[in-house]
């Protein structure tokens, strides 16, 4: 790259660096504040003295949360939801994308199925008809309501179809000549070379399952069956903190309602931070088709 070393150019460079630095800081400073609140002592939190660094650092908020059965239960449900959800989604997406990707095989009805799938997934009857349908299917207060409805994701299926299309047809043909069935070809030939696409889908599915909360509060009325983020919503939305027993108890003198909420936020964000480095590697693949949010 050719560089101009004029003064004006240097100044432009410095301005760009500063602007980008400020934008980057704006994205993390609010989270620093929350972490600081979660680690601060009672007096400082109540007097709103906490800025970006903890005052009177202690771990009482975390100690209380980690001993709370409702938190542990909802955390476990979130973990179960991510694990089961990722496995079910991957299996379904792979098994659906395979027949749709084999353009060389004449398959009557393939186009009709694609159109049906696309229309079904893009048109929704609305919240109330969906709620009543799930109720009559016996899905209310059922763990499966968190797993099955979002399992067939149209964008992931399209990503997978396009990936399968890029695999040389001769590979599959050779396997068929050796007597392999479609299942063999899918699981022994296609999947081993589709790991990047599968990793993308697995990571994005894991994030969306971990972050989902609306289905929890709508379809599950029993609070003990809520995933972590639904539990967090009930604290945020009502701004009512059911931690009275914690405030002022002898074991956790420094626990405060604000501090406990902050600690919960931190704990809910940590798993995302942990897989974030892996997510970054698959941004572009996951993004090209996901631009319409619905």
């Amino acid at each position, binding site marked *: *790259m*050719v560089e*101009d070393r004029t003064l004006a150019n240097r100044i*432009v*460079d410095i301005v*760009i*660096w500063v602007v*980008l*630095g400020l934008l*980057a800081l704006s*994205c*993390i400073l*609010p989270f620093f504040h929350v972490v600081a*609140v979660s680690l601060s002592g009672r007096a400082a939190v109540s007097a*709103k003295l906490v800025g970006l660094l903890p005052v009177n650092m202690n771990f009482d908020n975390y100690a209380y949360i980690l001993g709370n059965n409702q938190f542990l239960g909802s955390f476990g449900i979130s973990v179960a939801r991510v694990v089961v959800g990722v496995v079910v989604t991957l299996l*379904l997406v792979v098994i*659906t994308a395979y*027949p749709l990707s084999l353009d060389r*095989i004449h*398959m*009557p*009805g393939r186009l009709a*199925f694609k159109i049906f799938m*696309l229309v079904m*997934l*893009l*048109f*929704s*009857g*609305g*919240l*109330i*008809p*969906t*709620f*009543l*349908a*799930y109720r009559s299917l016996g899905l209310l207060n059922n763990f499966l309501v968190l797993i*099955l*409805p979002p*399992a*067939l994701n149209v964008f992931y299926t*399209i990503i997978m179809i396009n990936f399968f299309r890029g695999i040389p047809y001769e590979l599959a043909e050779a396997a068929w000549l050796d007597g392999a*069935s*479609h299942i063999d070809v899918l699981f022994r030939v296609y999947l081993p070379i589709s790991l990047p696409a599968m990793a993308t889908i697995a990571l994005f599915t894991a*994030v969306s399952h971990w*972050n989902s*909360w609306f289905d929890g509060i709508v379809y599950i009325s029993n609070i003990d069956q809520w995933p972590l983020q639904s539990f*967090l919503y009930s604290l945020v*939305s009502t701004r009512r903190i059911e931690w009275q027993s914690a405030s002022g108890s002898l074991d956790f003198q420094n626990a405060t309602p604000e501090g406990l909420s902050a600690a919960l*936020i931190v704990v809910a*964000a940590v798993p*995302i*931070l942990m897989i*974030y480095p892996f997510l970054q590697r698959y*941004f572009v693949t996951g*993004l090209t088709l996901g631009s*319409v*949010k*619905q």
Partner: protein
Amino acid sequence: MIDNTSISAQRQLESETPQIISRQKRAFRDVWKQHWMLYVMLIPAVILLVLFQLYPLWGISIAFVKYNPFRGLAGSEFVGLQNFIDVFTRPQTFEIIRNTLYIAIGKIIVGQFTAVIFALLVHEVRFRPYQRLVQTLTTLPHFLSWIIVGAVLITVLSGAGPINSFVKALGLPEIGFLRDKAIFPWTLILSDVWKGFGFGAIIYLAALTQINPELYEAAAVDGAGRWARLRHITLPGIAGIIVLMACLSLGNVLNAGFEQVLVLYNPVVYATGDIIDTYVYRVGLVGSNYEIATVVGLFRGVVGFILIVLSYWLADRYANYRIF
């Protein structure tokens, strides 16, 4: 003469038609014998689509009855279009549609603009580690749920939060980010842009890295300055992606961000912050007014579907983008 041949050709076609069908049938039988497994593989998807997408559509009929919760849909009285008349004669309906459009379009315009500018700025930085650091930090909020981000925003933007403490220290009046009707829609728009601009910029940055560096070198040799290179090389390089994103964003015009609004709004700002999705949730599920919520939800579903199809059509037409 011409007529005769065409008629005879037609006759020939008619006599051949049964044969074609039987040939097609035979072809299908062959496909089935060889590739029945392909059809079996689609069964799980069909079951899920039928149960969770097709079957609920039957409930749309609630829009045409006076719903009786004890007798169910079959025992409810048919009222024709009365529910639609009720919904579309209420001023409140137009208020939530207006709010939805205002917030969603604001997010699309400000969001895309910010993402493009940000991508261009990052592209100007020649020091790779700094590029990567800035991208890592700005992309992170996209992956956190609106619950987490919303809880953080409530802490930071509330009357006693750090921003208002600073504002009050300057002797200025408190800013009601979450309580002032005039400000709240912009709290929604700007916080959404803040959460998403880093992720939104990735697609532009990916396009920017595709630009041939030799173009810049050749331009520099010819004496092109920074602005000239931006105008004649960089911008044309991402113009295609900008057009594509503009087309696709049409599909989001009714998508004002349900989860975000549900976390951040409160009764004080319903007049400007209540959107179609939150209205359906509150009136339908919380208030058990099924008919009204179904009508409004159906309106959103139909218009939203048309917009998405239109956006794909535009993207295909103007940006050569096909989903299948």
